[in-house]
């Protein structure tokens, strides 16, 4: 198993290098001089030339790339053009918020999704099933910003239950977490229901029942453990998705997170910031996938021993 993991990790590293290169190149084939953009209204040619040189943008692409990798290893991701602060510091602040948001969202998505999925599977084709599946389908098919806006409008603005925005207290995370997690919750609910129903068709469920296990015992001890394998993998991948995909939610709820930094970086044509945030997001996804793989092989004895 260790060997498999090592191979996977190596693959992930290759992918990571590819990602860095891709981001780096993609951001530099953009037409126009970033410095000029950054200076805005009062740009003057001399200053632009000087800044371009200071930032090393006049060097060949490959030189820039290796220089970037080099300093990135030292934890130096440059200075943000648009916010004037070290990128590492900006991301450090924002990442805490995003992490909290993702954790809240994941907890919501998983608890809600799994519960919904189980209840739906047990009450297959009854009203409860229809309602829960309706709610989860809504989560999948509503654009995130719509659910975010509606939640904000109803629970914060109309009912005054929760803050409209900001991260001053933990309550500020609840609505964004639900908005962000709803989509994942929907997916989790759907897949939990499907796999659980599939699992309940399995022969070993009959065996367990023939043994004298009651419905709850069958569900918890036999069906769920097997059904949860794909769900768990999906959840791990989802978590990294939540961590890196909270752009919209953070914007609507004005949470100072990595996603918003990304938006800031794009509207400000802020290459160092965009580069670093993109790198962070993809690293998280790659690590998430790696974790999902490892988790699967730890949890599923069939893979554990073969690998």
């Amino acid at each position: 198993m260790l060997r498999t993991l090592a191979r996977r990790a190596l693959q992930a590293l290759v992918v990571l290098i590819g990602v860095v290169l891709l981001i780096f190149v993609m951001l530099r084939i953009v037409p126009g001089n970033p410095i000029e953009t950054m200076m805005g209204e009062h740009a003057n040619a001399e200053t632009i030339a000087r800044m371009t040189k200071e930032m090393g943008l006049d060097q060949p692409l490959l030189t820039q790339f290796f220089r970037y990798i080099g300093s990135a290893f030292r934890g130096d991701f440059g200075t943000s053009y648009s916010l004037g602060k070290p990128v590492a510091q900006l991301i450090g602040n924002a990442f805490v918020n995003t992490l909290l948001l993702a954790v809240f969202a994941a907890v919501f998505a998983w608890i809600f999704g799994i519960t919904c999925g189980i209840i739906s599977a047990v009450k297959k084709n009854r009203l409860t099933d229809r309602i829960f599946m309706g709610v989860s389908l809504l989560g999948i098919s509503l654009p995130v910003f719509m659910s975010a806006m509606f939640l904000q409008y109803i629970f914060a603005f109309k009912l005054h239950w929760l803050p409209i925005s900001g991260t001053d207290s933990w309550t500020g995370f609840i609505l964004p977490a639900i908005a962000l997690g709803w989509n994942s919750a929907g997916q989790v609910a759907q897949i939990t229901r499907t796999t659980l129903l599939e699992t309940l068709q399995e022969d070993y469920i009959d065996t367990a029942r023939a043994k004298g296990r009651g419905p709850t015992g069958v569900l918890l001890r036999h069906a769920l453990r097997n059904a949860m394998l794909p769900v768990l993998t999906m959840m791990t991948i989802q978590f990294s998705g939540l961590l890196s995909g909270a752009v919209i939610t953070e914007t609507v709820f004005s949470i100072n997170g990595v996603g918003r930094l990304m938006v800031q970086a794009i509207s400000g044509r802020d290459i160092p910031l965009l580069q670093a945030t993109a790198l962070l997001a993809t690293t998280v996804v790659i690590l998430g996938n790696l974790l999902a793989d490892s988790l699967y092989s730890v949890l599923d004895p069939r893979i554990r021993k073969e690998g």
Partner: protein
Amino acid sequence: MEQKTLEVRNLTVCFRTEKGIIRPVNGVSLDVPAGSIVGIVGESGCGKSMTARAVMGLLRYPGKVTEGSVLLNGRDITNLTEKERRKLRGAEVSMIFQEPMTSLNPVVRVGKQVEEAIRLHTDCTKEEAKARTLEMFREVEIPEAETRYKCYPHQLSGGLRQRVLIAMAMICKPSLLIADEPTTALDVTVEAQILKLLEQLRDGGTSVLIISHDLGVIAKVCDYVYVMYAGRIVEEAETEVIFRRPAHPYTQGLFRSVASLREGGSTLETIPGVVPNLHRLPAGCSFSLRCGECDARCEQELPELKETEPGHKARCFRTGKEAAE
């Protein structure tokens, strides 16, 4: 009167589907005398497994027993609550399934799965349960029981898995074991071993109901055979009798197809047609659609199950006549 472990009377299972109600098991009556092996044989889809499940109380939604009764050791268990039923399952009546490959939970160690059965029905401690499990493993001839105890299902061969399943079924010493296609998925050599094991169990006092489409298996171990077709028993007799003088054209057809296989002939002799759709059963004999010898009466009227000779019953107008002639 000899003691009967299982008596099934006029058992009917209904399925409510979008296109109407179907009856995969339709008025089935059968007996399993104590200390004997009884077989049910038929093509897939004829209702054998459904009968077994109905006996176990393991029908899947939307299946439901609508008529008839099931007596286990003389006690009517048809109307027991689910909770009471559960107490019987695994303790008094056990079942093993067709696919040893998939009938064990892949993520739980086999020892634990066997142990679970005994801990559900007795108050024994963990240690006792384990000791009993290991003992059971040895009884069903699983070598290196200690090691196997810790294995996951995928680490065992098909034959071993079936043994584990048998151990699980037998650990509470039930009076009846229902074996649904116990050897279908196994090699021929393993098949023989498992069948031998079933015979040993019978000799140990457990009655066995074997469900199989394989006449070979039935011939080898069964004392008495029921032939099922489209939800009904079409023929029943002692094994020897039925193999010597199959009365129902369906049974005859089954025998012929096996025979042609045995001879290794290039042409496969089969019963023409397929098992009829239960939604569109003919008004008369269910087999009339495929029967080479059917006449107008067969298509209109349902034949009764009646004796063709003492201890041998068949559901056919023709055989009745034949016997009379």
